[in-house]
């Protein structure tokens, strides 16, 4: 009963005209960046992070969340019609989605991707409503040792799932922690790594770092090669899947939804892993696995449902524990912090309007996305023809303006350009920026919790092992750290490794 009252309260907040507008802007931009290859939700969210300053916390966070789950919808359009994934979570959809389009079945492929995403998004929201308050009430009992170990686990899982060698990912995570510690020490107020620059006393801003690493670096990388697009030119018809299509897709949608939701909750996991796992599961369960790769609708329905369910599930650790499970959620945490809010176990009780408002807006956003992605599909197809030689300079200009407006400080523009150049060379040398960004956000929290637990336990390191949740997290982290040493596990890791840590 309480949940229903809270949901009604949430809809009251989400249905305010201003919040509806922000929700629409969020899902629209999300679909846009999902559709356009080369720009992912991370770049778009980092670009728009300063915009959240102008409105209420509800409006800003509703918009940011909309970009994330909106991009999951939009990504499938590009995968199906162009055979280029709009964002990392839609890589798998290319395999069978584009084959379906080539066979003249682009309509049913787009239709099942949208309906499957809608069903999965709805399930994830209902589950979020039921699970989050319960988990938050348990999380109140968490001490600094549990928080520290959970963050360590989150970082290790992300580095485990990042493409390329694990030492590289771990090195990136360490650099992220160090960058996060720049500025005044929160306990002793001693300046650290500021090199005498007053601008660094408050630390390095999240906005210039992510805009540089994901916005500028992405443009630099994309300019290296001419982007060729092979757009399906036939008219898109029959967006409503046939009865046979529904019959074949019902199971994959259901399994993908459940699998995606649980993988989304796990720290370090997310939409990309979920879509790959769902595809593998459907292929394994199919009586005719040879159809996969040649236009099997199950290969679209499962992964698309899984990535949307994962996007919903990823909100749970952030909202209930205050720990972002992936980079996108780290950016959302940044939006909370900008407004002086701290997501965590007390958010639901202290700020119910915000929590339930965001959850309700996600439901409204899912309905908006269904309308945006089916009847208006023609508009997105036209957008796919937007020339990149005009788009990229505009992105650069918007990143400069976005960074400057977030702090009114030219120094941040320098920081962004520097991180853009560093990010470009990092990617060229095979160093993924995702662990760095997550560690940058978690670094100060990890340090704080580590020092608090050491002070409370009077220097007894066993406190991290003796407390069951903390101990379990550390053991799991250790297993993941040592896993790549075993050849069979190393192969498995390479199979599930993701591109951007999304």
């Amino acid at each position, binding site marked *: 009963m309480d949940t229903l009252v809270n949901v009604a309260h949430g809809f009251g907040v989400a249905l305010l005209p201003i919040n509806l507008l922000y929700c629409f802007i969020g899902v629209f931009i999300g679909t846009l960046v999902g559709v356009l290859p080369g720009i992912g939700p991370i770049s778009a969210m980092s670009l728009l992070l300063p915009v959240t300053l*102008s409105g209420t916390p509800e409006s800003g966070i509703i918009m940011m969340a909309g970009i994330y789950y909106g991009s999951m919808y939009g990504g499938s359009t590009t995968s199906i019609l162009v055979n280029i994934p709009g964002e990392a979570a839609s890589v798998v959809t290319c395999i069978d989605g584009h084959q379906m389009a080539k066979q003249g079945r682009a309509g049913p492929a787009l239709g099942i991707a949208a309906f499957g995403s809608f069903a999965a998004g709805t399930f994830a929201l209902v589950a979020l409503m039921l699970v989050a308050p319960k988990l938050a009430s348990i999380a109140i009992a968490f001490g600094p040792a549990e928080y520290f170990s959970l963050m360590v686990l989150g970082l290790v899982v992300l580095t485990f799932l990042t493409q390329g*060698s694990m*030492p*590289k990912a*771990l*090195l990136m995570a*360490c*650099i992220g*922690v*160090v960058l996060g*510690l720049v500025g005044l*020490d929160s*306990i*002793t107020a*001693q300046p*650290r*790594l500021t090199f005498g620059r007053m601008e660094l006393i408050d630390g390095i801003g999240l906005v210039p770092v992510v805009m540089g690493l994901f916005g*500028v670096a992405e*443009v*630099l*990388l994309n*300019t*290296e*090669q*001419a982007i060729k697009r092979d757009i399906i030119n036939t008219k898109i018809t029959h967006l409503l899947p046939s009865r046979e299509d529904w019959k074949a897709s019902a199971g994959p949608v259901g399994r993908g939804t459940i699998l995606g939701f649980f993988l989304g909750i796990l720290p370090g996991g997310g939409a990309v892993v979920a879509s790959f796992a769902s595809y593998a599961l459907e292929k394994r369960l199919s009586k005719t696995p040879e159809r996969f790769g040649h236009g099997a609708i199950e290969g679209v329905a499962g992964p698309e449902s899984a990535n949307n369910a994962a996007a919903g599930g990823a909100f749970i650790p952030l909202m209930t524990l205050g720990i972002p499970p992936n980079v996108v959620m780290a950016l959302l945490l940044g939006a909370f912090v900008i407004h002086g809010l701290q997501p965590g176990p007390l958010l639901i009780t202290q700020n119910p309007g915000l929590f339930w408002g965001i959850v309700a807006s996600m439901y409204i956003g899912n309905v908006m996305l269904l309308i945006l992605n089916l009847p208006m599909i023609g508009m997105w197809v036209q957008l796919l023809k937007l*020339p*990149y*030689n*005009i788009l*990229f*300079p*505009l992105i*650069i*200009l918007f990143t*400069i*303006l976005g960074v*400057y*407006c977030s702090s*009114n400080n*030219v120094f941040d*523009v*320098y920081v962004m*350009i520097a991180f*853009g*150049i560093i990010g*470009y060379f990092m990617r*060229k*040398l*095979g*160093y993924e920026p995702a662990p760095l960004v997550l560690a940058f956000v978690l670094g100060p929290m*990890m*340090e704080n919790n*580590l*020092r608090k637990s*050491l*002070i409370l336990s*009077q*220097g007894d*390191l066993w406190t991290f092992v003796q407390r069951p949740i903390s101990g379990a997290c550390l053991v799991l982290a250790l297993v993941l750290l040592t896993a790549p040493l075993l050849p069979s596990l190393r192969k498995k890791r390479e199979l599930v490794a993701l591109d951007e840590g999304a």
Partner: protein
Amino acid sequence: MNDPTNVKLRLSNSELWGGLIGLALGGFVIWSGLKLKLGTINDPGSGYVLFYTGILMCVFAGAIIVSAVTEGGPTLASRWEDMRWSKPLLLIACLTAFSFALEPLGFLLSSIPLMLLLLRLIDPVRWTLAVPIAVLVPSGMWWVLKRLLLIQLPSGLFGIG
């Protein structure tokens, strides 16, 4: 058959360079941690976490170096093989020049040439389209930010913008 793009103990090994940079950074972080004072395990100081993170950085960088030497790694040149490497290089040069020009020239005088350069350098947009975009977009953004949102953009030594 030997792959010429994969080398072991050579200066052109990109993995080796990545590891060495990581090792140097790790060393610097350890030194910074020591300088900030470690404190004790009962009461960790400001440099405590930095120091141990620096050690971890050196360990991971060491692992990268060992792997680069034993298994080999792609050469620096092969990382840019078949790529239009001059495009990002030009873009980096433009952004660096822009960062030096932003404060003295102000937003408008620095961003209009930047846009024009980017539009002409990446995949050249024809002049008749590039010039209006390069002038109108920064000017339009400047107008929205300054007049509507009352955000003061850098106006430079000439006070333009």
